[in-house]
């Protein structure tokens, strides 16, 4: 566990979560959420939890982003807040 890398990743996590919740375009929100999942994957690889890291890379950053983008294309893309 490297403390400086840990701090940088955690700060980026908070920033991307706030951006994902503040953008009005839902496609952009789901892409930023994919970035958030990938940062969490890096954080787990750094926390020596490699099994959780590659599950998150496949399932969190891959599948959940894809189903979120599919939902945005089936429904409305603009959001009021």
């Amino acid at each position, binding site marked *: *566990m490297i403390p400086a890398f*840990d*701090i940088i990743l*955690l*700060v980026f*996590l*908070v920033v991307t*979560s*706030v951006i*994902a*919740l503040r953008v009005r375009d*839902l496609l952009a*929100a*789901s892409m930023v*959420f994919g970035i*958030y*999942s990938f940062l*969490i994957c890096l*954080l*787990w690889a750094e*926390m*020596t*939890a*490699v*099994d*959780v890291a590659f*599950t*998150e890379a496949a*399932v*969190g950053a891959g*599948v*959940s982003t894809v*189903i*979120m983008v*599919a*939902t*945005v294309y*089936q*429904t*409305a893309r603009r*959001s*009021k*807040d």
Partner: protein
Amino acid sequence: MEFFEQLIIPKFNYWIYVILMMIGMRAMIAKNNLVKKLIGMAIFQTAIILFYVSIGVKEGANIPILDHHMMPGEIHGGDPVVVAEFANPLPHVLMLTAIVVGVATLGLALAMSQKIYRAYGTLEEDDILSQIKLEPND
């Protein structure tokens, strides 16, 4: 100052998990769009998983995979296992299940929001509620 030195700086990762959890909870409660609520739910869930996985981290420990140097005729490997050299794998295994369950929850909720969009033509909560109120008693 003593508060910072004893509570904030040594446990900064826990504080950031609490911040992430509160960001997700505020999104679930206060956001109007259903997809935004679901993003908040996923952030809340990953904050809890981060908390649990970070419990198993040890200072100077390696990934929890044993080196196998099996000699022919030996049942176990050569050197005895030193527990302090490996991170605790039990929280990892428990949280692996939580990740998979979380993706299933997210997929089901997104499918339900597609059904809601087909029925009401919108994903905004206040529009859906006003349409429900306009419908005659049912």
